[in-house]
């Protein structure tokens, strides 16, 4: 019992640290990557001076995330003249909390047997083993969908209670867009569920650990390429980022539904947006890119298709799996940021047409084809 508590507390700490750390990293990546793509240098003025010396630790501007956070915390927390202060104060938390909850069902590593990590730990943990996942729920994907549904409430509440027309318009746009794209996202995910035959994300990742045609890893992107594109598009639209950033487009609506927010409440909206990038990347990695699987790596070590094997201790395998997941998530996030700095914004009617007349029929078609293939091959 106490061992379970220790392990799951460690998992929770890792999950929260993972999300917040990589979200802060992505604020830096977004600036720096856009700068390099546009022949600029990017943010590099923030430094930490090593005490008692004149050495300034710049680290390519990595500390700008910390500076942003400190700035947000220290700014004046301005509340506009609104008719519902309670809703106004509740909205940022309602927007940020569900995003943090989604990560609880995502597996970030294989099976952990703490007793085998180090010989000293064996007395305490014995031979218990845990899946590296905060909550191993049977209905993994549905939890993801339902929590992202709660997130819509936060944006709507923010726009409504700000008593501002820009915020109101932004909230209306955000809500319609998120509801519309949730449909095609759900359909794309269902075709994935049909392929894997499960809703549990950990089982999905284990399904992807096999090999296709003897050499190609059986990742979802190879078995369901269309669902990958559909899910990526719908997820970016859910996340309200370019090219779907109509709810907060600066040229029309100042900042959209969080125009009236200042200080850390505005920071919560921004942070939840970046955490959402992490979560979307983690979902992409889990469902389409093999999760924590490195090709040919099993729980006992590498087994190559030619027959060669390379046995590894448990600690190395766990570290490799966790590291693989981390690297994949960062790369998927960088890809999203590349999209964000490449594409122009949609017009609103184009957005709705694209969602309802193009993505949804395509997702439904994909589902039908997947179901037929599954029916014949089962």
């Amino acid at each position, binding site marked *: 019992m106490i061992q379970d508590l220790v392990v799951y507390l460690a998992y929770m700490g890792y999950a929260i640290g993972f999300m917040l750390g990589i979200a802060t990293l992505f604020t830096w990546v977004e600036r720096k*990557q856009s700068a*390099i*793509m546009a*022949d*600029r*240098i990017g943010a590099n003025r923030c430094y930490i001076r090593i005490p008692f010396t004149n050495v300034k630790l710049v680290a390519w501007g990595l500390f700008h995330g910390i500076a942003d956070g400190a700035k947000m915390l220290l700014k004046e927390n301005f509340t506009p003249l609104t008719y519902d202060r309670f809703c106004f104060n509740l909205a940022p938390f309602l927007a940020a909390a569900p995003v943090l909850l989604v990560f609880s069902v995502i597996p970030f590593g294989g099976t952990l047997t703490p007793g085998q990590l180090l010989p000293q730990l064996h007395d305490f943990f014995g031979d218990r083993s845990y899946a590296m996942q905060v909550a191993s729920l049977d209905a993994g994907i549905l939890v993801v969908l339902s929590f992202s549904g709660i997130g819509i409430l936060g944006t709507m509440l923010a726009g409504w209670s700000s008593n501002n027309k820009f915020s109101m318009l932004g909230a209306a746009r955000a809500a319609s867009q998120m509801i519309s794209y949730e449909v095609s996202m759900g359909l794309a995910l269902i075709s994935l569920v049909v392929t894997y035959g499960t809703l549990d994300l950990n089982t999905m990742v284990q399904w992807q650990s096999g090999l296709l045609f003897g050499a190609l890893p059986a990742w979802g992107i190879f078995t369901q390429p269309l669902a990958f594109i559909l899910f990526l598009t719908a997820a970016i639209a859910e996340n309200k980022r370019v090219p779907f950033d109509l709810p907060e487009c600066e040229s029309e609506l100042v900042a959209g539904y969080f125009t009236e927010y200042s200080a850390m409440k505005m920071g919560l909206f921004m942070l939840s947006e970046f955490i959402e990038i992490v979560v979307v990347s983690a979902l992409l990695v889990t469902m389409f890119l093999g999760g924590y699987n490195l090709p040919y790596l099993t729980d006992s070590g590498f087994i190559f298709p030619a027959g060669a094997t390379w046995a590894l201790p448990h600690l190395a395998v766990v570290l490799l799996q966790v590291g693989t997941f981390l690297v994949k998530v960062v790369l998927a996030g960088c890809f999203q940021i*590349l999209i964000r700095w*490449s*594409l122009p914004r949609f017009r609103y009617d184009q957005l709705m047409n694209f969602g309802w007349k193009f993505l949804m029929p395509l997702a439904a078609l994909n589902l039908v084809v997947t179901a037929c293939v599954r029916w014949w091959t089962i």
Partner: protein
Amino acid sequence: MKKDYWNKPEMGLWERLYIFEVVRGLCITGGVFFGNMWKWLTFRKGALTAYYPEEIRSDYSPNNRGRHVLTRRENGEVQCVSCNMCATVCPAYAIEILSTANFDDHFHPKAPERFEIDYSRCIFCGFCVEACPEDAIRMVKEVPDFPTYDRNNLWATQDLLMNWRPTCNPAKIYPAAQKALEEVHP
């Protein structure tokens, strides 16, 4: 009623499918990213930006109006005669002059004791240079040492203006004081 524009794009099937054009766009931006990244990794600069205070750009126009210079006479004294024309013409009221007199120097009896320019107000219009009857103030193209953390550092003193780039106009000849006295009172 939908309006038709004269420059409405003609889109074929390839463009209508959208996704391939998106991939092409991603390839272009990604190519730029990796090209610049390779430059950074090989210790070249992958950007056109200059780090301003640390790195002065080399290609300022020769006509650029940068920091002011107070020119000197041959003996190293300031050429300014403290006529206050530059301070009068200055639209930003950035120049302050306090005069002093030296009646032994007959050609140059009046000189500034303090000549200060407030760079937090200066708009670099160059009017002071044009107003000066003595060619005592000039603007050179370089702009060193402007950024600072304290606005008091933006006051340029006479010492700084005279000495940061010592300038002398040899075409303008000033006779020595004794010789001048002989010329005036033979």
